[in-house]
């Protein structure tokens, strides 16, 4: 892991992540879990959010330095409870990774066969949840910028946000909205020093992908750890100060 960490930080001090405050939604499986573990290895201060209390507690037992929060970003009533705990447990925030996602109908279905409730769940989880959580945390992110930081919000997107794949209607439409939301946030918040990006990890071997495409060959899919490494490098480009490259 140490070698991987160094690879993600070429041109930066390995200690550059130390103390950076990061919150990851959907932090107990797939990409989110890989991000939490790697960021902790880099000595970032990490809070993660997930719906299942048992899984949250299990990860906290595995990594005592992780701040676990049980909550559902698709529930409006959970957002400020989550925000209070992120800020209380981290003492502020530099990076928010909106990673939790919903496929909508499972198994995937054509739009014509998609129940409104399933579409609503995709929108709540993939669009409104990230919007609400980002809004609740904007003050803390702006404070980070005023203190000389370069705060960042990452919205985890998908190529389904760009391409019209049959059967991915609820997911694709919601991710498209999230993708566009990211661009508008980014334009509007530039004056506050807050960056917002949308990022597509590619097709990963995750529980979510297994539900969406049960017969996919896992070896043909990206490992979530590889995607996490890519994202951490990208975040570093946005957030961390650049230092002289190591020889």
């Amino acid at each position, binding site marked *: 892991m140490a070698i991987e960490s160094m690879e993600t930080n070429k041109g930066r001090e390995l200690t550059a992540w130390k103390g950076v405050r990061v919150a990851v939604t959907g932090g107990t499986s797939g990409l989110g879990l890989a991000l939490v573990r790697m960021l902790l290895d880099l000595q970032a201060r990490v809070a993660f959010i997930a719906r299942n209390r048992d899984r949250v507690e299990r990860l906290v037992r595995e990594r005592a330095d992780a*701040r*676990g*929060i*049980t909550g559902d970003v698709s529930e409006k009533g959970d*957002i*400020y*409870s*989550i*925000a*209070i*705990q992120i*800020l*209380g*447990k*981290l*003492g*502020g925030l530099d990076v928010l990774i909106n990673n939790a996602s919903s496929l909508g109908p499972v198994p995937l279905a054509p739009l014509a066969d998609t129940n409104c409730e399933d579409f609503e769940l995709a929108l709540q989880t993939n669009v409104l949840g990230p919007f609400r959580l980002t809004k*609740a945390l*904007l*003050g*803390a992110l*702006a*404070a980070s910028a*005023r*203190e*000389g930081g370069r705060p960042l919000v990452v919205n985890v997107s998908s190529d389904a946000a760009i391409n019209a794949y049959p059967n991915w209607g609820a997911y694709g439409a919601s991710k498209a909205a999230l993708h566009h939301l990211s661009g508008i946030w980014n334009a*509007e918040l530039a*004056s*506050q020093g807050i960056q917002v990006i949308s990022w597509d990890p590619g097709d990963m071997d995750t529980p979510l992908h297994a539900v969406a495409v049960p017969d996919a060959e896992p070896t043909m899919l990206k490992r979530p750890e590889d995607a996490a490494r890519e994202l951490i490098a990208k975040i570093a480009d946005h957030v961390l100060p650049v230092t002289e490259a190591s020889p």
Partner: protein
Amino acid sequence: MIPASVPTQRPPDARLLVVDSGGRIKDVLRASFPTLLRSGDIVVANDAATLPASISGVHQRTGRSIEVRLAGSESVFHEDVRRFSAVVFGDGNYRTPTELRPSPPELRPGDTLQLGPLTATVLRLLDHPRFVMIRFEGPSASIWEGLAHHGRPIQYSHISTPLAVWDTWTPIAGLPVAFEPPSAGFALDWRTLDAIHRRGVRFATITHAAGISSTGDVELDARLPFDEPYRITESAARSIRRARATGGRLIAIGTTVVRALEHAVSIHGSLRETTDVATNRISTDTELCVVDAILSGTHEPGTSHHQLVSAFVDQRTLAKMEQILQQHAYRTHEFGDSVFVEKSRGRAAEKEPVGFVTGYRHDDVLTKAISV
């Protein structure tokens, strides 16, 4: 004045009574606040988010229901989430006016308070039967979770619907350390911050754990404001020093900012990075050293907030302000209208206020704002 009974942070018709340094008084739409600023000024706000600091539960020794309102803490450090001063009420909730709330059962050191998932111990009484120092048990992560899930915003009877946490967070709210909202900051939405920026005005924040505004007890209310911890970062202090060095005015958003900045200056003799506890009381006799103007809510005479505003203007101007606020039915309390008060030139001279001009209309637009 009439109580603002709806938890809308920025109603389009929110009003602003402007008192300039010459004692001239006007009223405008609050949305025009940026037009009162000049290039080179600095606006300083309190970026504390508001804890859900009302916690219901049971006093274990007697089995009686209680409501604990967290009222103060020792620092704004996020790990310091165990020890709080608190005002304790007997059974009931915010719908009963605070002054009519029943007393709690007799509180003794060592008593256990079971507050939903949170367990607290009474450490000592703070010279009053309903004002105590408590300590939450367990790790800080569990305390944060318990507060987040079980706490509710402190609320008073002038608002009938239950407040949600989002009603109490200003747009710029960051670290959740305030016990009641630093409500002057409700005026600052992101559009306003952009407008301020475009006018060449700096913006900085401090973090100040705004305390409770009413205890329901005359004797305790006389002790308000309680001690309040705050933090002024080096970057904020530097921004303020730069603005003042070039002749810019310091406009404080809310009474907590005035209290913290003036406290820090009284300690150090100048404004610098400070983490401390504000114990000062600002009133008519206070000579303001660093703050030039305040944007604040409208406050009723007799409150500590009202006393603080009296440090900016002479008594006659203050009386004139009160008269206008009453006559023109300004809304008061945390979701009410606002005042913008510049420190009076030669406050001691007790000059007659120049007069009052109303520029406010319900269909007014920003361009109707006055220039000061």
